[in-house]
């Protein structure tokens, strides 16, 4: 259970909640914001009549009509390029790229324009736009449907990168992203779109962009992760508790801008860190995190920061994807290695 969920449960807050999946929470965030602000529009492939291939836009077209829930031609670059034009002229587009594996044709628009517009016009033109994209493995799909390309965007300044790991954060972070004045890449962990439900307030709320969460408190070692891997880390923490190892989990939630403070405070406390992500290890964001921890906490560290990540291979097709994805055993092994350093 993440602190987000604990927060809702423990606050004793009388506000109504409902049990939602991540996919439903994402849909509710869009619906609430479309309701609140007529400049918010949703566009993408199959987002209208079909309600999205993951049903994340289910029911929106019935409620808001085809002028605000726009089924586009099959053209990723156009989806982002049109969003740039719309965002520059008073709209707040929420674009969907159906799978992150298909984002390549849109990269020119994302990194060549969306991320640069505010800076290159010295603030005259700004782009309040969100680009949602399901990412990551674990659903045994065909090729190109399982990739985690966050590193590409994290080495390209000007675009915020947000990754929820649970329904509460999904709704709150997406709401914050839609209200944000800058482009936000919103990566949705498709593997856990419908894996579990959690209490989500029915009223709109935001989870701040740029703030990590301590998803589980612990004393001995810090796991740093995001997206679907947070769930795996939570399982590992349970497993390790039986070996009397107390694991703390930092769910970064936003990768850019990174909440260094929460992350470093945790590692300062435990003196140990393992980063877990699905993207390939080499030049993955785990390397940046390890470097930051080294720069700030070298003398407080009991062991080198370890990375449990995808391998530096093309994401395997369905039959072999389990060989690729970080799993409990691999993470537990890294924890033990760190503890026994």
């Amino acid at each position, binding site marked *: 259970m993440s602190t987000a969920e604990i927060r809702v449960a423990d606050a004793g807050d009388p506000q109504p909640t409902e049990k939602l999946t991540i996919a439903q929470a994402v849909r509710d965030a869009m619906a609430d914001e479309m309701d609140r602000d007529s400049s918010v529009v949703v566009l993408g492939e199959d987002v209208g009549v079909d309600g999205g291939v993951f049903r994340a836009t289910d029911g929106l077209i019935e409620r808001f009509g085809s002028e605000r829930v726009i089924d586009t031609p099959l053209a990723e670059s156009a989806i982002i390029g049109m969003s740039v034009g719309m965002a520059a002229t008073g709209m707040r587009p929420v674009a969907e790229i159906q799978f992150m594996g298909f984002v390549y044709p849109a990269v020119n*628009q994302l990194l060549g324009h969306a991320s640069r517009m505010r800076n290159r016009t010295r*603030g005259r033109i700004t782009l309040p736009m969100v680009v949602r994209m399901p990412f990551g493995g674990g659903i045994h799909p065909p090729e190109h449907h399982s990739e985690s390309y966050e590193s590409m965007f994290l080495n390209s300044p000007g675009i915020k990168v947000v990754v929820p790991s649970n329904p509460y954060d999904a709704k709150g972070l997406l709401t914050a992203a839609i209200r944000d004045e800058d482009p936000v890449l919103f990566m949705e962990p498709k593997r856990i779109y419908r894996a579990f439900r959690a209490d989500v307030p029915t009223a709109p709320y935001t989870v701040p962009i740029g703030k990590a969460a301590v998803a589980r408190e612990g004393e001995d070692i810090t796991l740093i992760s995001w997206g679907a891997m947070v769930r795996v880390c939570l399982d590992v923490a349970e497993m390790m508790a039986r070996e009397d190892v107390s694991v703390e989990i930092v769910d970064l939630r936003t990768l850019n801008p990174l909440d260094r403070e929460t992350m470093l405070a945790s590692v300062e406390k435990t003196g140990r860190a393992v980063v877990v992500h699905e993207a390939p290890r080499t030049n993955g964001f785990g390397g940046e995190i390890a470097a930051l921890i080294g720069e700030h906490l070298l003398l407080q560290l009991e062991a080198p920061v370890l990375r449990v990540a995808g391998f530096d291979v093309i994401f395997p097709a369905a039959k072999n994807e389990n060989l690729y994805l970080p799993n409990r055993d691999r993470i537990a092994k890294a924890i033990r290695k760190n503890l026994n350093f």
Partner: protein
Amino acid sequence: MPRTQIYNAVTERLEILDPTGIVDEDLMPDLDPDRIREIYRDMVRMRAMDEKALKLQRQGRMGTWPPIKGQEAIQAGVAHAMEDGDWLLPAFREHGIMLLRGVPGHLIYAYWVGDERGSSFPEGVRVFPVAVPVGSQWQHGTGVGLSLKLRGEKAVAVTLGGDGSTSEGDFHEAMNCAGVFQSNSVFVIQNNQWAISIPLHQQTAAETLAQKAHAYGIPGIQVDGNDVFAVYSVTREALDRARNGGGPTLIEAVTYRLGDHTTADDASRYREDEEVAEWEGRDPIPRLRHFLEARGLWDEEQEQTQQAAAHAWVDEQVAALESMPPQDPSDIFSHMYADLPPHLAEQMAEVLEEVGS
């Protein structure tokens, strides 16, 4: 079953003003003499701006500059056909039309000197910044056109780009989506026949670029791009259609890049002097001057006055450019996001310490 014809397309071309200054009266757009003189003055001013930039570049006072010489009729014709609320989305060889749509000359220079403030246009100027990634701006033109349509504005997004950019995938996606959404968009290809060293016939096997419109289900037309009246007419017609819910149009304006691709290029490496000379003879500026003189609307004295005025104006722009205060070193950080994130604050402090401010 016999094969049947299911689609038949004709692509039209419009010419009104010939190289000697004679017009087809039946096709002349409704422009009064004052307006025609204004168009001419604008074209002269563009040429002066361009020539000055080349001089500045040779003196080390300008960065890389893509000259617009020879393409003034397109830029003046399109600008004069546009109305106040319309948006302009340029590529990077559109200084002339940007100027006419309200971008101050010294800011156009500033951009090419390498100063981001050159893309920070005055409030209310509906012009996108220069788009360097070739063809990417076509997509924005569809998006802005869709935005105008959805928000019920009776305005149009006018996007310009070069012939080379029609080979990019973004061109296809933009035209296709504009057709599907019937966006308030007009697309103008400045077909200057060369994309750096690649001539049009190596860019496409299609006979014209205008005919590509047929594939997107939108109107397309070719126009003599060195004929300002023809450019004005087709643009006006396309704008009226888009403004009134009739959807997008693709205009191919055929012209010639009389200069190099940029000041970093040497076009003599890949094209013949004879070809350039032939197109020098079709220069749009003398062509319009011949027309004005034949009508008694212009004389040598007015020409001298206008040349002097254009050069004086250019000198003012250079003075304004060169008197811009330097940017604050922190500016490279402060416009990345609405709020400065902590890691950028740290990096900004690093730079400020380095420069001692």
